[in-house]
Structure formats: structure tokens, C-alpha cells
């Protein structure tokens, strides 16, 4: 009985640290930020920070599904670039027939959603029906999407028609109840993602597949369909991120979204999701995205560190943030 009670405490606290770890890391970062420069906690900066993390955060919510189900998607950054590019082309071409009003913007957003779903479906189908390792499939599509946007932009930048930009701008720059729209989208996606992963059968199927595909299959789960759907969700998240990205600068180029895939995966894993699948947490992912954005933000707030060493700081902070959530860090050597 004695044994069992200690066991429980150990288990409890381990669960706590998995959850609290990322939150703690974020808190420490914020304190450091404040100490470096009190204007870190100014409303303006916090708003910027939240808005910025919306891109990676939304994409990372999708990545949580893919990774939980045992997959991986390296193509998201390129996909975002390609979708932005096509969206801009479509809206620019629609000006003649549809004008520069809301209708054109909606057309663009609709196309983004369709493209996102389509691109995700391609990744999913190649992985499941084609039975190719997800890493290879998405490495391939990463190259393909990236080079397509370069091709469309002729190596340069695709820019949104100036008047449409006027119509579309508020989607990024305006606020509702003091929070910019991108943050609301982020919150919405996060809530939907959380519900989907934790409160629906689909979420359980993702976890089951990531945990043990054979078990999932033996439970009459349509493994291929669920896996494909995780990629579709990822694609959809990418298109949401794109929809709030395009009004920011109104342009897309070959350098749009470079390395977003690594950032998104890092956010997911910093948040406590297990890379091999079977265990996903949307809440952690959100925190992970905030942590990553905050690191970049803080580094812009100080000149204590050589610019050249930004990468070193980032790397160290990521490793330490994950160390913080090691379940047994309190227990010292035992186990």
C-alpha cells in the first residue's frame, strides 16, 4: 500500500510536469524578457507577439494531428508559400471581373482552403495509398511546392493588387475586443483542434494509430482514411495561416515560409507531443508556438548577445525548455 501511494504521487507529478513544463518555460522567458526590457510587456509588444505566433501556432495545431497519428509533414512551409502565391494570382486576375471588393477576397480565401485541403490530401494519399514514408513524401512535396511558387513568381515576389490589399488589410491589422483578428483565428483553430483531438472519436483514432497501428486496424478503424485526414487537417491549417498571412505584406516569394516546417514541428514537440506518435497535446503545441515566437522577440529586444549567436541562444533555449518537462527531473538520479 505504501508503495502504491508513492507510485501515484510520482505518476501525478510526472503528468503535471509534462503539462506545466512548457508553461513554466514560457513564464521564465517572459520574466527574462521583462528584465531585459520592461517594454517587453507593453500591450503593443504582447499583441505583436500573439499575432506573430498565430502563423506557426495554427500550422502547428495541424502538425499535432499528423504527428500524433505517427506521421510527419515537412511540406507545410512550402505549401504556405505556394498557397499564398496562387491566392494572390487568383485575386489579381479576378479584379477585372469581380472588382477589388470583399467578393474577390472571399474567392481568394476559398481557393486557399481548397488548395490546402488538396495539398494535404496529396500528402496523405501518397503516404497511405502509395505506402511511402511520410518523411520522403513530404520532403518531395516540399521541394515541389517551393519550386512552384518560385516559378509562379519568376524567382521574385508576387504582390497583391494594391486595391484588394486595402480591402483585405483589416484581416491582419484590425482588432476585435482588443485582440487582432489573427489571434482570434488562432484561438478558434486551437479550440477546434483541442475538441477534435480530445473530445471526438477521430482524435482517439489518431492517438490509437500513432500508438499502435495494428491495434487500431484490429479495432476496425479505417487507418488509411484517418491518416489521410490528418494531412488534410494539416493542409487546412496551412490555408488558414495563409489567409491571415497574405494581408500582412500582400506578397509571396520563394522565401515565404522557409523553415516553418521545422518551427511547427519544434512547437509541437516542445509542447510535449511525442514525435513517434500516440500522444498529442494541443495545449502544449500552443505554448510551444508562443515559446518559439517569444525567443525570437526577446532576442530582438537586447543587444547583449552578438547577432551571430542568435541561433545558439535559440538552440539552447529549445533544449532547456524540453529538459524542463522531463518527467523525472525532480527525482534526481533514481530512474
Amino acid at each position: 500500500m505504501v508503495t502504491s501511494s508513492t507510485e501515484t504521487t510520482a505518476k501525478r507529478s510526472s503528468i503535471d510536469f509534462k503539462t506545466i513544463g512548457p508553461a513554466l518555460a514560457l513564464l521564465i522567458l517572459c520574466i527574462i524578457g521583462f528584465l531585459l526590457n520592461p517594454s517587453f510587456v507593453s500591450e503593443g509588444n504582447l499583441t505583436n507577439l500573439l499575432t506573430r505566433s498565430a502563423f506557426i501556432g495554427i500550422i502547428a495545431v495541424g502538425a499535432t494531428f499528423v504527428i500524433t497519428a505517427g506521421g510527419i509533414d515537412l511540406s507545410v512551409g512550402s505549401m504556405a508559400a505556394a498557397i499564398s502565391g496562387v491566392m494572390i494570382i487568383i485575386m489579381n486576375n479576378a479584379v477585372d471581373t469581380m472588382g477589388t471588393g470583399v467578393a474577390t477576397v472571399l474567392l481568394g480565401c476559398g481557393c486557399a482552403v481548397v488548395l490546402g485541403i488538396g495539398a494535404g490530401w496529396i500528402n496523405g494519399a501518397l503516404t497511405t495509398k502509395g505506402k511511402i514514408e511520410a518523411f520522403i513524401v513530404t520532403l518531395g512535396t516540399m521541394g515541389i511546392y517551393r519550386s512552384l511558387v518560385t516559378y509562379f513568381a519568376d524567382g521574385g515576389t508576387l504582390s497583391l493588387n494594391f486595391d484588394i490589399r486595402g480591402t483585405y488589410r483589416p484581416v491582419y491589422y484590425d482588432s476585435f475586443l482588443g485582440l487582432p483578428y489573427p489571434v482570434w483565428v488562432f484561438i478558434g483553430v486551437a479550440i477546434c483542434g483541442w475538441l477534435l483531438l480530445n473530445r471526438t472519436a477521430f482524435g482517439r483514432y489518431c492517438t490509437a494509430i500513432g500508438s499502435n497501428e495494428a491495434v487500431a486496424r484490429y479495432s476496425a478503424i479505417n487507418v488509411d482514411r484517418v491518416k489521410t485526414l490528418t494531412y488534410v487537417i494539416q493542409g487546412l491549417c496551412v490555408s488558414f495561416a495563409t489567409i491571415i498571412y497574405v494581408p500582412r505584406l500582400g506578397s509571396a516569394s520563394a522565401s515565404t515560409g522557409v523553415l516553418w516546417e521545422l518551427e511547427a514541428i519544434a512547437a509541437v514537440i516542445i509542447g510535449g507531443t511525442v514525435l513517434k506518435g500516440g500522444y498529442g497535446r494541443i495545449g502544449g503545441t500552443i505554448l510551444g508556438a508562443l515559446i518559439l515566437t517569444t525567443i525570437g522577440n526577446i532576442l530582438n529586444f537586447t543587444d547583449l548577445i552578438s547577432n551571430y549567436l542568435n541561433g545558439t541562444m535559440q538552440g539552447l533555449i529549445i533544449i532547456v525548455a524540453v529538459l524542463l518537462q522531463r518527467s523525472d527531473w525532480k527525482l534526481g538520479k533514481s530512474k
Partner: protein
Amino acid sequence: MQMETTAQAAIIEAVNISKSFGPVPVLFSVSMDVRPGEVHALIGENGAGKSTLMKILSGFHDPTSGQIRLDGKKTDLPPNGAAESLGIVLIHQELNLAEQMTVEENVFLGREVKSRGLLDKAAMRATVQGYLDEIGLDISPVDRISDLTIAQKQMVEIVKAVSRNARILIMDEPTAVLTEEETEVFFRQVTKLKESGVGIVFVSHKLNEVKAISDRITILRDGQWIDTRHAQDLTPDLMAQMMVGRELSDLYPPMLEADVDAELVLEVDNLVATGVSGVSFGLRKGEILGFSGLIGSGRTAVFEAVCGLAPIESGTIRLFGRDVGTMTVAGARDAGLAYLTKDRKEKGLLLDKKMQPNLTLFALPKFVKNFAIDRKREEEALERAIRRFDVRAKDNDITVGKLSGGNQQKLLLAKIMECDPKIVVIDEPTRGIDVGTKQQIYHFIAALAAEGVSVVVISSEMPEIIGICHRVVVMREGGITGVLTGDHINENEIMRYAAGLKREELH
């Protein structure tokens, strides 16, 4: 015959089923039927094809020829457990749970209860809790499977099956990892289901159980149908004989007196580790020492700590008179101490590899010559092991995951013995093994002891502890409650120590 006339119509019938994996035939025109409200046991040697037949009956495999009739109509069962929608549920021989998920999630996997599109977790938890209470399993619906013991996992499998409103419930060795007590609980569930008209198919190597619970018994040998009879017409001995195809002599070897003055090869003093609180005992050369106790009493934990698989908090371990601190597993092996895990699927064998790398993995340094692995010696070792342990694979090139359960167990035993240990700890040595082979293993253990090897047998099967051990240590809640020798080794005595009704004042 009388049997046929009184019987109700069968729910499911297998008619002249044959099955081959590649060119290897494993079932030859086997027929079997299951009627509502009956327990139909299927027995046979390891590799006889029982699991294969069960998988065909539930749609996980397609038969190569023959047909399945459901309610008298020929049916092609849907694959991958989708036959559940027809009321056919299979508990696999190998545990089939998602380790990272909780008990509740596993029980309802694939048929979650929803309200308004979202999961109704409260309802599902309550249902699972109800089942757990009913069978007296002391775990919570939100516990993760990876935190459970094997026996608890098996009980979860049973809960999972029972909760599925089956018409036909097929269970492949559900009791292999259960103690007698848990088996009783389980049988109560079976009886209840049976009374409600469920047809139950049941595979087991524990022939007493088979006799006790089943109505009819089908015997397979080498993929051939031998007979189907009423349970009352068979005795365990007769069953064994029909399975093996010859008369079995005594199951247990004659007990050689242990030399009470032999040197102590292993002394454990006041060992404390996770799940172990202050355990002390000694093991002599050539002795067979049994470890008995209820599930979760800490027997495995003791030897995982001793063999370097789990950290030690305090206590001393003396191996051949030498104080060893915390050992690595390799250190223990090199010192002549080997531990055979009871969890062959998760900790014992690489299921996606062939037999040969599995066999030599534990003792691999022995096979290294000039920095390279001596493949010829490996092959010889495999041939030797197959002969010595009677591992029956129809094709020596298949991955270990495709071996029958019992043959996996034999391979695991061979793997551990490959390093010629002087002390071997065998956790549940005969789990899933047929009577014939069981007999061979008992004789093997006795022969080892006679050669001067010390053997620790951890077992939840009381007869086996009583049948082969010189001395028996009984554990309860992480501590030793008693040590029995000679005539004191009997079921009654062991149970009283194990249940905490009696406690020996230990030195």
C-alpha cells in the same frame, strides 16, 4: 448422435477450413461450430493452428479454402475486426492494446459513445468503472495501459471483449497470464455471458480449466481436426493424450533432493527498489527456488532489480560470495545470472526479426570472433536450439511475430539459455505452452538443477511451483511473507501466505 439432435442451431460454423501461409499449410480441412450459450474449448499443441482457426472464425484471416457459415448462411467475414458488427469478437492471444492510451480509451476504441458528435467520456468511464468493479480489478479507467501489469492488461482485454455485446466471443488463451483467483473471476463472467446466450470459444493450455468451464471440446493436432466431444466425456489426461497423440508420462520430473549445504550462489539482503520493500533470501547451487504470490506482489520487481534492469534503492546483493552493487544486465549475464522476462512481446523478442538474430541477441558476445559475428556458429546454435527446445516453425525463415505463441515462448527460453547461465531466473516459464512441452520444460529445469545450475521459477501456476521447486518463497505487497520447504509446499499453505493470512517471522 445424441449431441447433434439436442443441440440448438449453431451461430457460426467453420466448414472444412484449410489455411496456408505461403506454401506452408497450417490447417487441413478443419470443421467446428459454436452454438448459443455454450463454451466450446479448442485445444492442441503449440503451433497446432488454434490461433489461426480463431482468426479465420473472426475474419482476421481469410481461409484458403472452406467456408464460414453464420446462422447457416455462407458468409465472407469482413476483415480487421469489422466482424464485430456481426457480433463476433476476438480477444487475440497476443495482447492487443494501445499502450499509450488509457483503459477506457482502449475498451471503447472503434465504437466510442458519443453525444452530439462529441465523446461522452463520463458515460464511457462510468461503464468501464462498472465492469472493473464487477470483476474486482483495482485499476482506474484513466490509467494508461503502459502502467499496468500484464495480468491487468489481460483483464482489460477481457473487459473490452465483454463490453462488446457479442453473440460469439472468441478468446485465445485469455487465462495464460492470470492466476487462479483471477481465472475464477473471469470464469464467473464467462458463465454470465453463457447464460445470456453468447457462444464462447475458448483456447487454453490449462486442461483443468478446460474441463471445468467448457461444454464441448475440439482437439487439433498439427492442423488436423482430431475430435469434438462433450466435456464430460474427457479427462485432462485424455485431452493431453489426444493432443499429443501419445500417452504422456508424469508431468513433473522426480524431485532430486536439494543439497542443503551447497554453497550460496545468490544472497539478497534487505533489497529495496520500486515495488520491493526489504526483501532478503538466498539461493543455493543446484537449487530450484520458487517465487509465488499474487499478481503484483513484487516477484518480478525483485529480480528486475537484482539483474540490473531496475535501479536499487538500498540493500546488498552477493553473487557467488562477491558483493555486487548495481549491475548492468550485461554484467549480470557475464557473472552467470540471466533473467527471462514474462513479457515476451514487449520485452522478450524482436517480433519483426527472424529467429536467428533473436536467439543469439542475449549471448551475442559469445558469437563474436575477430570483431565479427560468426554466422556459422549462429546457424549451428539455431539448429541446436530448435532441437533442444522443440521450437516448431513450419518455416524457419518467418519473422518471430508469426510464430505461434507457445513457440515464441520456447524461443525465448532458448535465447536466455544460450549464454549458459549458472543462475537462471525464469518468469512464468510455461506461459502459453502446451502440456507436452510443459513436461519437457520441467524436465529441462530439473536437469539444469542436477547439473548444478540454480533456477528461480517465478510462477502464478501453483501446481508447477509445487511440482518442481525445492523451496518456495511467497511474496505479498513487495515483501516476503514466508519461505516453505518440503511438505509445507502445498497449495493451502502458499495461498495463506500470499493472501496475508499468515506471516512468518523472518529472521
